[in-house]
């Protein structure tokens, strides 16, 4: 919210400097976002007259203007504003002037073949408001070649503060002054809001509240007043300047008065041209009807909204925005002024639904002091009489205001308990009373009555905050948080440790860790097994971010595609992050997923003098998966491996890893058809590991490791080669060989696999080396022969193959 130093001083008697006020605002919770001496910042801009404006010969949207800026000669200026027209008076910047709204200095130039020596400016370019629809339009009688700041009375310091949602009371300059006064930066000046005598009966009766029982009723009290025979027109210079300085466009006196009361006291009003009303206005729920609002847009209303309507239809969307049909114009003679209190929640809902952002909504959805409904109307009446004359009729009032009337029992010790700061009781009571709280009771516990403008204060902690923000948090002494009287327990849980270890293990294998979006496109989600309704966003920010990811692969594959487009074909990346198998908490799992593309293998990638890198394949993925399992304490050779690849995998080059009934993950080469559909060129080897599916390690009875049993006897090895059907897996052969003599066979490795015509069609040869470790005595040749025979028998039985001789 913006306000000027002058405006503040109208409510606060203070000698404080602008800097001091700015600093104080921040320290009491009204954060200063900007402070600017507008007179200085805008001193170079002058009023000017567009003597002629003609179409630019080379550009449809540009005009070539001859501008009189009081220098005695006409200046050529090319202007793109739609309202740049012959005869208009506007604001001009000479070359060399800094344009704050554009953060640039305008120079002499040539725009598409036409000389342009300066710039005609909009309010946005001067940072006076967000209005950049066109250049500033000054009245016809505006002088030419004078400083715009002098002409518009833009002078002095403008503060811009941000107001937190709980502080409806600070949405008016008066409320801000009250806070500053409570801090001790001056004295609050009272406003005369006493009733203005009426001159007769109101031609408009109190508005009947025609809400059906089951429909929401946004209105609490509606106060209206008929003002007869006023003289409207442009408001006086001081009022126009005040509004302009905070970014509002002066409209006419009546409208400017409503804005003055809204910004000055945080009390929004609305004025209707009484002669444009069709019959007695009423308060009712909106229907499915169209509404032409003052922002020149048409809104479709529904029954959750509240309107002030006459026989023709809605006049005003209650508490949010007025309508064009009954708008007050320069020619308005009779005014119906509204000051109503609304249910903040319903105003917020209507605001959200329509998307209307207005000064009224901003205030009414926070909170407006319910004690200001009638006094606010009296204040406005007084201003109208002062500036427009006329006769006020009796107020037309319906409904009742809602006062929270909160009373809080406040032990003074509460301040120390929550902040650690000792504040003298006298200071506590002084602060609270300056903020408008009424206190009774003596001693350590006060009974505090909360003022009507602070419905956000409901309990002890709220009062502590009021005290603390005035005393200053920086005055709270720093005190170490004592250690608990035991050694801190382990900080990370198993799953948290698993993620950390998986990350480091994969990075140590040369993969870069990526963090990709949790949401992906619906197509990708569906393709990878997700896409259910409960995992779709109702209000996605982009079409490729609509669904919670069921897998990390789509995100990594998209990253691979982007990298490939930048010329990086050999990529090794992984992510350890959440996937969403359902929208329930237990549907969230953490996966470790990685992929390698091109030739990005463990040993290195690309061309190298030591040997050309081979394309990545299924065993690279299996090795990565195995490495993570190993880092987490699981041996990939001890979990179950199935030739049951994931749908994304090449059906003959991928597998599934499981333990008991639980699938732990998958590895494989990307299915060529998927690669084509996903627009991925070149080989991709990937794996997925569900870190949540790994069983929790069993709690061991002892941390002691088993004794190391070292044999004094030399191990010996024997080689065997078997010719088996191609479909027989090495895993089955290894398992059979290992099982032949569990006591003496220590290790079995596959050292050769080949196919070829000499082993037979549909056959392959698998050669294994078996390491035999004698335990208590050296084995005799006969014993070794017996073990060998056992191995051969076991493997041939299991595989249906024969020993190659």
């Amino acid at each position, binding site marked *: 919210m913006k306000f000027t130093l002058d405006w503040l001083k109208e409510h606060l008697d203070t000698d404080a400097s602008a800097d001091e006020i700015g600093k104080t605002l921040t*320290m009491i*919770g009204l*954060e200063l976002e900007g402070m600017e001496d507008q007179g200085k910042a805008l001193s170079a801009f002058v009023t000017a007259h567009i003597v002629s404006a003609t179409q630019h010969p080379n550009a449809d949207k540009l005009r070539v203007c001859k501008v009189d800026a009081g220098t005695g000669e006409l200046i050529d200026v090319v202007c793109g504003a739609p309202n740049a027209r012959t005869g208009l008076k506007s604001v001009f910047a000479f070359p060399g002037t800094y344009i704050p709204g554009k953060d640039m200095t305008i120079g002499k130039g040539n725009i598409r073949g036409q000389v342009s020596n300066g710039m005609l400016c909009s309010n946005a370019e001067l940072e006076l408001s967000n209005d950049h629809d066109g250049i500033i339009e000054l009245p016809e009688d505006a002088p030419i070649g004078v400083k715009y700041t002098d002409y518009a009375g833009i002078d002095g310091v403008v503060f811009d503060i941000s107001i937190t*949602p*709980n502080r409806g009371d600070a949405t008016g300059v008066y409320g801000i002054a009250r806070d500053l006064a409570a801090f001790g930066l001056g004295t609050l000046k009272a406003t005369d809001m006493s009733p203005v005598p009426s001159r007769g009966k109101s031609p408009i009766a109190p508005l009947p509240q025609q809400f059906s029982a089951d429909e929401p009723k946004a209105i609490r009290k509606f106060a209206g007043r008929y003002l007869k025979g006023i003289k409207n027109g442009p408001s006086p210079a001081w009022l126009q300047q005040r509004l302009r300085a905070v970014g509002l466009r002066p409209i006419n006196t009546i409208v400017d008065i409503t804005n003055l009361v809204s910004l000055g006291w945080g009390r929004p009003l609305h004025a209707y041209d009484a002669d444009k009303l069709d019959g007695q206005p009423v308060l009712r729920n909106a229907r499915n009807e169209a509404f032409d609002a003052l922002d020149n847009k048409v809104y479709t209303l529904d029954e959750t909204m509240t309107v002030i309507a006459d026989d023709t239809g809605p006049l005003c969307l209650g508490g949010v925005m007025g309508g064009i049909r009954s708008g007050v114009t320069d020619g308005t003679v009779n005014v119906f002024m509204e000051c109503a209190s609304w249910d903040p929640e319903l105003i917020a*809902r209507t605001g959200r639904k329509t998307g209307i952002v207005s000064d009224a909504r901003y205030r009414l959805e926070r909170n407006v002091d319910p004690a200001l409904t009638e006094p606010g109307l009296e204040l406005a009446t007084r201003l109208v009489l002062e500036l427009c004359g006329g006769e006020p009729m009796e107020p037309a009032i319906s409904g009742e205001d809602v006062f929270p009337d909160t009373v809080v029992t406040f032990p003074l010790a509460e301040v120390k308990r*929550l902040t*650690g*700061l000792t504040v003298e009781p006298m200071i506590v009571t002084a602060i609270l009373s300056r903020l408008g709280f009424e206190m009774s009771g003596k001693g350590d516990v006060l009974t505090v009555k909360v003022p009507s403008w602070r419905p956000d204060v409901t309990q002890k*902690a709220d009062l*502590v*905050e009021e005290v603390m*923000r005035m005393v200053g*948090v*920086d005055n*709270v*002494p720093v*005190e170490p*948080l004592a250690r*608990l009287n035991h050694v*801190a327990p382990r*900080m*990370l849980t198993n*799953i*948290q440790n698993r993620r950390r270890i998986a990350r*480091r293990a994969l*990075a*140590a294998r*040369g*993969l*870069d*860790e*990526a*963090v990709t*979006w*949790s*949401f992906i496109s619906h197509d990708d989600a569906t393709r990878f097994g997700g896409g259910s*309704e*409960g*995992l*779709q*966003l109702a209000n996605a920010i982009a079409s490729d971010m609509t669904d*919670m990811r069921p897998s990390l692969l789509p995100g990594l594959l*998209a*990253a691979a595609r*982007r*990298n490939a487009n*930048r010329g*990086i074909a050999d990529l090794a990346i992984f992510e*350890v992050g*959440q996937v*969403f198998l359902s*929208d329930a*908490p237990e*549907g*969230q799992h953490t996966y470790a997923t990685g992929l390698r593309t091109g030739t990005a293998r463990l*040993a*290195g990638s690309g061309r190298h*003098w030591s040997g050309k890198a081979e394309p990545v394949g299924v065993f690279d993925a299996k090795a990565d998966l195995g490495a993570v399992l190993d880092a987490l304490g699981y041996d990939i050779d001890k979990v179950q491996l199935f030739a049951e690849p994931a749908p994304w995998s090449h059906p003959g080059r991928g597998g599934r890893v499981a333990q008991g009934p639980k699938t732990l993950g998958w590895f494989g080469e990307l299915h060529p058809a998927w690669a084509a559909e996903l627009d991925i060129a070149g080989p991709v080897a990937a794996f997925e590991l569900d870190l*949540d599916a790994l069983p929790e390690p069993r709690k061991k009875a002892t941390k002691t490791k088993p004794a190391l049993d070292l044999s004094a006897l030399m191990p010996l090895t024997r080689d065997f080669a078997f010719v088996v059907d191609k479909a027989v897996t090495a895993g089955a052969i290894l398992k059979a060989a290992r099982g032949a003599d569990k006591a003496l066979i220590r290790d079995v490795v596959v050292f050769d696999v080949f196919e070829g015509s000499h082993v037979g069609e549909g056959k392959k040869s698998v050669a294994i080396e078996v390491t035999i470790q004698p335990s208590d005595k050296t084995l005799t040749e006969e014993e070794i022969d017996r073990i060998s025979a056992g191995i051969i028998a076991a493997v041939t039985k299991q595989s249906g193959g024969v020993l190659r001789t």
Partner: protein
Amino acid sequence: MSLHDQIDLIRTNLDFKLKVATTEQHVEQLRIEFLGKKGSVSALLSTLGAMDAEERKGAGAQINLLKTDVAQAIEERATILKSAALDARLKAETVDITLPLQPAPTARGRIHPISQTIDEITAIFSDMGFSIAEGPDIETDYFNFTALNFPEGHPAREMHDTFFMKMGADGVKKVLRTHTSPVQVRVMQKTNEKPAASYITPAMDPPIRVVMPGRTYRNDSDQTHTPMFHQVEGLVIDKSSHIGQLRWVLEEFLKAYFEVPNVTLRFRPSFFPFTEPSMEVDVQCDRSGSEVKIGEGSDWLEILGCGMVHPNVVRNAGLDPDIYQGFAWGMGIDRIAMLKYGMPDLRAFFDGDQRWLDHYGFRPLDLPTLFGGLSS
């Protein structure tokens, strides 16, 4: 031929043959030719048997001297040739050691700055006796808002630009959590129910000291806002913790995190529905150069929000706010990572650009610890 002549002949012969011998094998053949059983020196020795004692005495000495000399000459030649052969082998085996290797896997893989920052935060708070708590990303309205004292329809809800989920199978409309604060509620709540999943931190009894890092979501996107980001939140609940200790925790954390001897903080009263009193915290910094320097200078940079846990939140968790109290704080992980490591654009965090990851990422064995330093 006299014995003397014979000896001379053998010596001459040996000299010549050794000179032309170029290999160790060749020298070995000469050893056999001269000193072997049938060798010329051995033949000469065998003539001694036929001599009388007097003659044998003189000849024996000469022949034995010859034998010693021959053996020595052969040995010398053999040594020279052996050494030459080794030299030649070593020379032949010499390689260009400047040929570059493939970079080691640990030299290629990198840890993302977000993970590294979370590890740094974890290291610091573990020293203060905190543990890590977590909850789900898809939350109910209750945990994300209601339990945290966001009344229905309150404008504070609008500050959050919430992502809503479509109706799920259970008929409950959920949201993507807009902050990590729902985890506070899950940790604090009085319940005997086991969490639905093992990653969700079970409820605890006070005293509670937890930090809660995680992914959060808001429907917002520009240079400094992404629809997904990371937050870390802290919570202390016991019977006595107050703002003075909150200040200490934050100061100590920021000093440790930014690895500077001092930080100056500015606390501004603010508003969060779930804390009362609420504060925003600015850290003093120097922004005059190209990078932001924490702990010096005269500018202020907003860095986190904090406050005393709102009595309504304590009450919603089933605790009595007249007995239990505490504080909470929250900050953006991405943001403090950007500040510490000078990364300009938040959006690049989530792009997976290998060049960015290699440049801003951390070595796999750069483990942030307090004993070894958070960053090298």
